[in-house]
């Protein structure tokens, strides 16, 4: 009966240390992402931290690091207040940071080097280089480089701008100032960039921390400092850091001033590494050796809060700080569409090869046939008579000529591989990302949507599986105390009390918000908690019954047994102050607020004691010892010296671990009652905790104390010693009660899940929670419905797993057979199918994943409509994603908010991080980040759909656009004795794909939308277009290419025949072809545009006009042979009739097919478009038409297994 999530750890962020590892949870050896590697990294913290984990676990490290000492060779020696010695023999970097990739000098080579990682660019570079060989020169020297140079420079400018912005922010950072102890023992303002290791730095409240520092002294006499790490890990609550007693004690007495700090000493710490949560060092001070841990350092990027000053010594500076070591870019993934695109690019390469071969073979044949005449042809001439001796004129024999022809034709037709596509795609994705970020409907409070990966926008439109975390993703992760069970009595009336409005505040004074008065000031906990009147009565009653005493202990336990720091916050009303409980775990906060509401208000915490206002009476409790939560024990405990001189041990923890240490003999009934209460709490979706206590007699206490002190000062294996101490004392507890905490569902989750399901997306929930909680959340978010048949697999051995999977499979086939029978008889598609839900727990998954049973699980899971995995470990989450990803082509999406979701986010095709209560680790690993689960719906259904649609069209269009040009060139080559002459001027052929036709496709790739947001949200089924890859597939590619051949033929042959036997010159007809092809491809695009807004108009018509201007300009240069040709052409009517004829004839087949398909075989998107435009006008027609897509969905869904 363990609650799935570790509720008690000071922070819930990293349950990477396995979530309640069900008994023998063998860690999957390969693929270990988090825990195991991170141990590695700290164990060998040498120069090269081995491929360090991006998201190290914190807890496992603090355990391992304190068990070892650092060998001198792997240590860094920091001499306090002696930067010179600290920086010798090796000079350590200063504190200036540089996040820029390039400097002025390195920009060009480095940027080019990076860009040429793209294979296509190498191809173009090789061709440009080949073009420089005289025999192969197809284009002029300059012109052949131009397209590549253009594409490279666009990207380079983009990179340079980004880098410049980074440079500016670096400069700003480096020029910030802070106080550094100078040689004459005064704190002087110093620029951050000048800080060096070993210097002493004084920070004031709200100061940003300039580098990683070891705390030596703070304004607090016990050496506590509070820091906010929001920039580092996104956790907004305050964290406590401590200066060591040794550095405080020795000097506070000797120094007269209040600021006391040591000015000498040696810190021996590990080499810089990126583990934010681990630190391992010791310090020699005053002849003593002190061991240091992660709680003694403050890191760059954090801010000092609620501490008037703190002094520390810089240990890691500049690029060696942990925050800098951790800053890494988003993972790069390649989108499905791009993968397909590469397939088609290869096809195009084959086509290019074919075209070139045809030209080559024909050229060879022509040369062979005319071999005898070559020298007499005025237009060929093998020999050069101009010199004294008769030489060869560029003739190397047929063999070589054929080779040259082939190479030259590759150069000439190179744009068959669309060079501009790559840069266009980058720009389009940038634009799409801009619009996704700007979208108001995906903005939560102040959190905007974040696009971290720029190259998988279009994958969002093809998702078939969504893997979702539960806590913090489906739920808010804002914990609310709901019910308590004290000594076997259930106090859960809060559940039934109606929701009160916030306005009732005033009339209902102390009922909900328990307040204290102190010196005329009112102290009020910031959060109000609904309380159970009965329990309040019991607590306040005067009787001295055992029950009352235990109830008080229970609430006291809630108030005391935590690591919460109360902060008093001013409000607008000067008389009222709020108590804000800062803590790392939302569960603890909820419990502390609950305790406050019942009258046990935690008012103050220092390192030695806490002050609790017990029912109006301030009492001081000494905190004698604290055993932090760890995932093995799954509980925490605190030993408190009460005002009445008794010593009490309070323990709270997950039920599974608590019932093992409770003295059951004492009161069996209470235990049973509590167990049943726990069961009922968890079945309504609450997170449960059990509280126990024991009064310690003096001998026990002393025994513990000596062990505790010994353990906590031990140099080696401190953590394990402490754990043993804790385990020894946490026995024979008296059960006090249990609590139930509600984690509320986020807004709109049920609706979002319903939309996703209608969109044909399967939603799987993977949670660490226990089964009952998971199922109840499943119901409340409409994932599970009462009509579903549940298949539950809880097995403890491989055999039983196999059996239950087989059973499940036979059952599912039986059910679907029944359904199909019913379907046949009734003829109603899909509606009779009994929906199946698979619920499986982590223990069973241990036996299934990475064994041959995976296949069985896959079969069962894919027939089920819903899959719910509970109590899964982080790596199992990734394993489940891999289960689908490796076996199908379906796109997967993982969404989560915590570090435990990182592995699954990285595994899935698309990873989404929720930037919520838990840290930023999920966000850092994700491709997209957003504030709420429900934004998944507009993200996928609207933006994903648009992006997919746009990108798919853009790729096809780019292939078409370049191919149509290449084919036009190709036809002409057939009329030039296969000598690769182009009628189109070389400038035009070079500018074609980068200027003449580039802009419209980019604008349309960013802005066009087939359907409005409203329609897409209203009919989630429309999402299916992406899942079925309707907009880009091999068939469409082939059709496009056939169309391309027709269009290029129209462009070429209409002028050819019209100008047959005329005086037309090569430049004139070339200009006609140029204009025709540009107008044609732009109109072709215009025909396919869904929405013409002013930008579309400007770009399409503007491009045509720009082309005409370019052609005219080129023809105004007298030293080009085409001088004035365009004007001579435009004088003739024939030119204009050719142009008109080309456009109509070329577009006709496409138009006919389009008109026919849209009217007689409309896709669901087309139907929706018509509905959108004509609305209610022919609602009836639209409704009947809707049946088409509906059935197609049903079919699509059935196809999946």
């Amino acid at each position: 009966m363990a609650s799935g999530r570790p509720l008690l750890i000071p922070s819930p962020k990293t349950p990477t240390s396995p979530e309640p590892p069900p008994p023998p949870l063998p860690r999957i050896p390969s693929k270990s992402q988090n825990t195991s590697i991170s141990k590695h990294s700290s164990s060998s913290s040498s120069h090269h931290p081995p491929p360090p984990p991006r998201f190290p676990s914190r807890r496992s490290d603090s355990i391992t690091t304190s068990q070892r000492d650092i060998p001198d060779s792997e240590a860094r020696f920091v001499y306090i207040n002696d930067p010179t010695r600290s920086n010798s023999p090796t000079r350590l970097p200063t504190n200036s940071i540089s996040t820029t990739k390039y400097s002025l000098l390195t920009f060009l080579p480095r940027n080019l080097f990076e860009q040429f990682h793209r294979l296509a660019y190498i191809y173009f570079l090789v061709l440009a280089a080949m073009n420089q060989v005289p025999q192969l020169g197809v284009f002029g020297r300059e012109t052949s480089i131009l397209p590549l140079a253009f594409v490279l420079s666009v990207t380079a400018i983009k990179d340079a701008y980004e880098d410049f912005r980074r440079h500016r922010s670096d400069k700003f950072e480096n020029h910030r100032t802070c106080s550094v102890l100078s040689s004459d023992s005064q704190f002087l303002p110093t620029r951050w960039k000048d800080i060096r290791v070993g210097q002493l730095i004084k920070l004031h409240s709200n100061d940003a921390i300039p580098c990683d520092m070891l705390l030596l002294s703070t304004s607090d006499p016990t050496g506590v400092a509070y820091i906010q790490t929001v920039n580092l890990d996104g956790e907004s609550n305050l964290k406590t850091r401590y200066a060591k007693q040794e550095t405080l004690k020795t000097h506070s007495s000797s120094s007269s001033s209040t600021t006391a700090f040591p000015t000498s000493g040696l810190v021996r710490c590990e080499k810089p590494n990126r583990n934010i949560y681990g630190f391992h060092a010791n310090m020699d001070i005053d002849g003593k050796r002190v061991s240091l841990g992660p709680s003694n350092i403050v890191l760059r990027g954090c801010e000092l809060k609620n501490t008037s000053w703190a002094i520390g010594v810089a240990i890691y500076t500049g690029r060696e700080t942990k925050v800098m070591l951790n800053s890494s870019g988003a993972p790069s993934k390649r989108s499905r569409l791009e993968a397909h695109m590469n397939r088609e690019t290869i096809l195009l390469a084959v086509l290019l090869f074919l075209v070139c071969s045809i030209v080559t073979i024909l050229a060879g044949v022509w040369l062979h046939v005319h071999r005898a005449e070559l020298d007499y042809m005025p237009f060929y001439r093998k020999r050069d008579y101009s010199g004294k001796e008769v030489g060869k004129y560029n003739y190397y024999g047929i063999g070589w000529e054929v080779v040259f022809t082939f190479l030259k034709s590759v150069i000439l037709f190179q744009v068959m591989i669309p060079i501009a596509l790559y840069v266009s795609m980058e720009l389009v994705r940038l634009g799409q990302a801009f619009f996704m970020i700007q979208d108001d409907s995906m903005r939560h409070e102040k959190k905007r949507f974040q696009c971290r990966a720029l190259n998988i926008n279009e994958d969002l439109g093809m998702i078939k599986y969504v893997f979702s975390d539960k806590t913090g993703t489906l739920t808010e992760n804002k914990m609310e105390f709901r019910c308590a069970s004290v000594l076997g009595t259930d106090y859960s009336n809060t559940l039934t009390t109606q929701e009160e409005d916030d306005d009732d505040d005033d009339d209902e004074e102390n009922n909900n918000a328990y307040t204290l008065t102190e010196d005329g000031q009112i102290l009020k906990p910031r959060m109000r908690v609904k309380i159970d009147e009965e329990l309040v009565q019991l607590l306040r009653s005067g009787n001295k019954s055992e029950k009352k005493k235990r109830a008080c202990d229970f609430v006291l336990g809630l108030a005391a047994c935590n690591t919460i720091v109360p902060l008093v916050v001013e409000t607008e009303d000067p008389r009222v102050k709020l108590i804000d409980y800062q803590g790392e775990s939302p569960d603890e906060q909820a419990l502390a607020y609950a305790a406050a509401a019942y009258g046990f208000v935690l008012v103050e915490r220092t390192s030695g004691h806490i002050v609790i206002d017990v029912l109006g009476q301030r009492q001081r409790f000494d905190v004698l010892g604290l055993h932090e939560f760890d995932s093995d024990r799954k509980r925490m405990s605190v030993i408190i010296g009460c005002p009445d001189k008794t010593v009490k041990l309070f323990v709270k923890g997950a039920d599974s671990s608590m019932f093992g240490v409770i003295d059951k003999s004492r009161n069996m009934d209470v235990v049973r009652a509590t167990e049943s209460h726990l069961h009922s709490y968890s079945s309504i979706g609450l997170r449960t905790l059990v509280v126990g206590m024991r009064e310690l007699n003096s001998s026990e206490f002393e025994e513990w104390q000596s062990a505790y002190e010994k353990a906590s000062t031990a140099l080696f294996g401190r953590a394990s010693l402490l754990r043993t101490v804790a385990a020894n004392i946490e026995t024979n507890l008296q059960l006090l009660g249990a609590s139930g905490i509600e984690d509320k569902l986020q807004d709109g989750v049920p609706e979002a899940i319903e939309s996703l399901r209608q969109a044909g997306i399967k939603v799987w929930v993977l949670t660490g929670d226990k089964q009952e909680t998971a199922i109840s959340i499943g119901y409340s978010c409409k994932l599970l419905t009462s009509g579903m048949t549940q298949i539950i697999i809880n097995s403890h051995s491989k055999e039983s797993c196999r059996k239950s999977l087989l059973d499940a499979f036979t059952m599912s086939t039986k059910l679907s057979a029944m359904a199909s029978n019913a379907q046949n008889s009734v003829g109603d598609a899909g509606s009779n199918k009994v929906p199946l839900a698979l619920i499986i727990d982590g223990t069973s998954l241990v036996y299934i994943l990475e064994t041959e049973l995976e296949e069985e699980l896959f079969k069962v899971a894919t027939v089920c409509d819903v899959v719910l995995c509970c109590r899964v470990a982080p790596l199992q989450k990734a394993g489940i994603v891999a289960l689908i990803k490796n076996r199908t082509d379906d796109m997967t999406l993982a969404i989560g908010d915590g570090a435990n979701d990182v592995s699954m986010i990285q595994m899935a095709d698309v990873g989404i991080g929720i930037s919520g209560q838990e840290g930023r680790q999920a966000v850092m690993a994700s491709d997209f980040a957003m504030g709420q689960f429900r934004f998944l719906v507009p993200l996928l259904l609207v933006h994903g759909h648009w992006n997919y649609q746009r990108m798919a069209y853009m790729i096809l269009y780019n292939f078409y656009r370049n191919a149509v040009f290449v084919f036009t060139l190709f036809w002409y080559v057939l009329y030039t004795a296969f000598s690769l002459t182009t009628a189109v001027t070389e400038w035009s052929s070079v500018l074609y794909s980068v200027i003449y036709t580039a802009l419209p496709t980019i604008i349309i790739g960013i802005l066009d939308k087939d359907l409005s947001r409203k329609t897409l949200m209203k009919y989630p089924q429309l999402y299916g277009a992406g899942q079925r890859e309707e907009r880009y597939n091999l068939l469409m590619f082939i059709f496009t290419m056939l169309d391309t051949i027709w269009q290029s033929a129209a462009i070429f042959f209409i002028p050819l025949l019209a100008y047959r036997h005329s005086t037309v010159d090569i430049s004139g007809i070339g200009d006609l072809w140029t204009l025709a092809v540009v107008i044609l491809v732009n109109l072709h695009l215009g025909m396919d545009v869904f929405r013409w807004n002013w930008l579309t108009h400007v770009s399409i018509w503007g491009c045509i006009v720009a082309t005409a201007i370019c052609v005219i300009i080129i023809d105004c240069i007298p030293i080009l042979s085409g001088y004035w040709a365009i004007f001579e052409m435009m004088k003739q009517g024939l030119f204009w009739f050719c142009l008109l004829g080309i456009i109509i004839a070329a577009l006709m087949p496409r138009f006919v097919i389009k008109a026919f398909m849209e009217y007689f075989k409309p896709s669901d998107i087309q139907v929706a478009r018509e509905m959108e435009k004509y609305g209610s006008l022919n609602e009836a027609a639209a409704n009947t038409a809707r049946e088409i897509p509906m059935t197609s969905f049903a079919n699509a869904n059935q196809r999946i297994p």
Partner: protein
Amino acid sequence: MNNNGAGSSSGSGDASPARRNSKRPKYSRFTQQELPACKPILTPQWVISVFTLVGIIFVPIGVAALLASNDVVEIIDRYDAVCVPQNMTNDKVGYIQNDAIDKTCTRRIKVPKDMNQPIYVYYQLDNFYQNHRRYVKSRNDGQLRDRSKENDTSGCDPEKTTSNGVPIVPCGLIAWSLFNDTYNFTRGNKALTVNTTDISWKSDRDHKFGDDVFPKNFQNGNLTGGKKLDPNKPLSQQEDLIVWMRTAALPTFRKLYGRIEVDLKENDTITVTLKNYYNTYSFSGKKKLVLSTTSWLGGKNNFLGIAYLTVGGLCFFLATTFTVVYLVKPR
């Protein structure tokens, strides 16, 4: 000035807190992708009207183009084969290369229909790849228009310089292979003058071929390719060269030779006395003499008319088909 500065600074001061206060930026149709737009949909009405419209435009144009083409009177006379003396038909190349043989040849042409002046005289070459890559590139446009660039013969291989290394003006294969057959026309016994001026583009004469550039060392090599140019006439006046240098797009092409500026009557017999100098025999090219009038659409060519009629007719057919299908089987 001072006032202005103060005013603007206070203005911006007002504006920025206002912006800060409103956390949500103003709703923008652009960023929310809600720009007003027109959403064309191919409804049957649209499709049918488009086809009808195209049909209505195309058929008349097609008819007009066909009529225009039919009005054009064109006389084509192939003479390369018949001008070879009977005894040389087996060695045409030998015939053409032998300077001793008189190349004069007389052709009689009957005018089939009235021809109104101006009557254009063309020569047509078949199977002559003026667009061949090796040929097209063999010129230097700078040299042609600028006297100071006379020595710039880059790109002119293999007709760059004479065997002494002196640059040729105009250099290059194109100029070297200048067509050199000449035609003289007589009707009855009266000579028909052929106006050979203004046969080239004005732009070419004015800007492309320099009026101070004179032919030099032209056709002095071992191998004569074609016509010799008058070294005392600037290039801008050598219109036959200018026409020739406008390289043709296709292997069968016509070049304007001149204009006959009198009307010709039906059944007139024209005697053409031509000098058959140009060697097309070595690559089995054909030479034709063409006399043609023009219409508003150019020369005689039925293609455009037929193409427009076909497309127009097809559009009418499609319009009807769509209408029928739409009526018979509405969706």
